[in-house]
């Protein structure tokens, strides 16, 4: 079985503020709290628009639920909410400590794999 160990090569520490990829700089506003707070208006506007267009262009092969205006929007919204709201009971039922099976868990080194060397290589 292969064993990986940390390379002796020193890695230059990154600066949180300065070491940003040049391509990311025009998109830093995505991390702005105000943008995040108001992001909901984009999908919500799209949703309203699509419901309105859906009234003008109904399904050509409708299912029984398509008689309700915005049926797919309702399915999407309530399905999503149902899935997410199931998380709490599911977590309390199924979640166990990471070392539950005693096999060492999933890959989680404290350092990047990039800086590791494989003894088999």
């Amino acid at each position, binding site marked *: *079985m292969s064993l990986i160990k940390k390379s002796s090569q020193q890695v230059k520490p990154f600066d949180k503020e300065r070491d940003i990829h040049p391509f990311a700089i025009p998109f830093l506003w995505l991390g702005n709290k105000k943008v995040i707070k108001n992001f909901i208006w984009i999908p919500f506007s799209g949703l309203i628009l699509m419901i309105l267009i859906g009234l003008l262009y109904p399904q050509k092969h409708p299912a029984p639920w398509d008689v309700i205006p915005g049926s797919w929007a309702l399915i999407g919204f309530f399905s999503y909410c149902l899935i997410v709201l199931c998380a709490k009971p599911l977590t309390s039922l199924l979640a166990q400590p990471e070392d539950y099976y005693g096999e060492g868990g999933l890959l989680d080194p404290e350092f990047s794999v990039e800086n590791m060397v494989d003894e088999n290589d």
Partner: protein
Amino acid sequence: MIDFLQINPGIWLILSGLICTIIPHTPFTQLYRKCLVVCAPIFTAFMITQIFTSDIAIGGLISIAGIELTTLRIDNLSMVWGYLFCLIGILNGIYGLHEKCKITDSAALIYSGAAVAGVLSGDLLTLFLFWELTAISSVFLVWRGGEHAYAAGVRYLALHVLSGVILLIGAVIHAKFNGGSYAFNHIGLQNLGGWLILLAIGIKCGFPFLHMWMQDAYPKASITGTVILSAFTTKMAIYTLARGYVGTDILIYIGAVMTCFPVFFALVENDLRRVLSFSLNNQLGFMVCGIGIGTELAINGVVGQVFVHVIFKSLLFMSIGAVIYRVGTAKASELGGLFRSMPITALFCLIGAGSIAAFPLLAAFVTKAMIISSVIYEAHHNSVLYLIAAMLLFASAGVMEHSGIKVPYFTFFSHDSGRRVKEAPWNMLVAMGLAASLCIFLAFPWGGYQMLYNLLPYEANYKPYTVDHVVFQLQLLFAAITAFCLLKKSGLYPAEKRSEILDFDWFYRKCGFDLLKSINLGWNTLDAKISNITRSAYGSVNKCLYGVFSPIGSFSKAAPSGLASVMTAAMLILVLIIVYFVR
């Protein structure tokens, strides 16, 4: 003279893999090995084209012990899988160019070769051979994940070898009911053999309660290994279903369940590669359901969905692999804000996420709709199928949750984890870029999706870009995103926590293991008790014999000669009686 067009093209990949194993491990020869990894799938695709265009539908006929084997069959169905496996083999080869590991290169080539050879085989015995080869070759990719992957690899191997054995038993029984023919055509569920083969495929395909190996092994494999693993095994199983079980009703219900249950597991899972494994399971459900429907539209949808799914799922695994490569973990709780460091990877991941969620202009939009539409069309004749259609729509919202939102959001956006790393290596970016371009191109309204539809086994009259389809699909997706924003704002969206989420494998990993331990303990206790009883019995007998025959025993004491004569006579009579009756 060897006719190369009679050789199953998968063999070329397998041979390349074997050559890789003997190429010495030096920096110079590594270049040759990497060339082989990328060029072998190109050559294999070329050979598939040569055979397909030369009208050799069936070839490589071999007779062994009176059994006719058809080692090569290329038709409209198998050809799609053959090309797809070659395409993804090339992308995987490019993605893994940075990796120096000989085992990964060899295993990847043999594994992809076995998958190509399996889908191009014309009989069940040849299929069995390559079915097992995919299991044996791919386990090395799991084990390359490190020591923590060893046990998962053993479980993976055991289940897949078991699947092969069940396939073989099923094939033998099926052949018995079919006049000794092992031809791999429609199988159905008319006899026990058909059921056993379905069970074997079910293991490989991740049917409910048989799916655990996927979420167990895939997240533990090496970075490149997971990307490779996600492409072949399950799609080979889908091919065998599409070949042998078209229109089998039970698959509709199995598929519908497969689409729904992983959605819940994916939500509570913290490891993003495991989330993607559940997502893979969910997508397979759409395909299985479509095969169960079995109409031309459904089969076209399945084949199209397989084709694009391999590409966008690989893209998602590649992007998370790149994150692991740079950051060292795929745990959502440890990530966030990585778009600042890895913007190109983030863009590719978003394209993959949009593709799997079936956004218009992205891959699954032009294929998944065919499956859902086929269910709704058939529901006009059988109203139970409306329930199935509703389940598929529910699962579509679920796909949006785990793959469309959760994976890119918690990795690249969400809160800033403060990790500043380098962008992914160039070869990973090239592979992801190619996959992302294909996701866009294959859904492009003007000449893109038509090219995909030309590959489908039946004539495709389906028009994906109709106003109602675009509008209603966007309703579903926008509603899901709105729900996400609302739940996040209200604090009802669960925070990612480090934990091990129990799945059905708990029954054998914990319960079964504890049961075995208890049996072992019970056996040891029983063994000790039996040993004690035996020892005390031997002791008693020994004591008795000693008391009779030892120098101080009763037989050693002085006795009257008359008694000795009587004893001797009695023994003589006893011997005579025994000899008389024995003779």
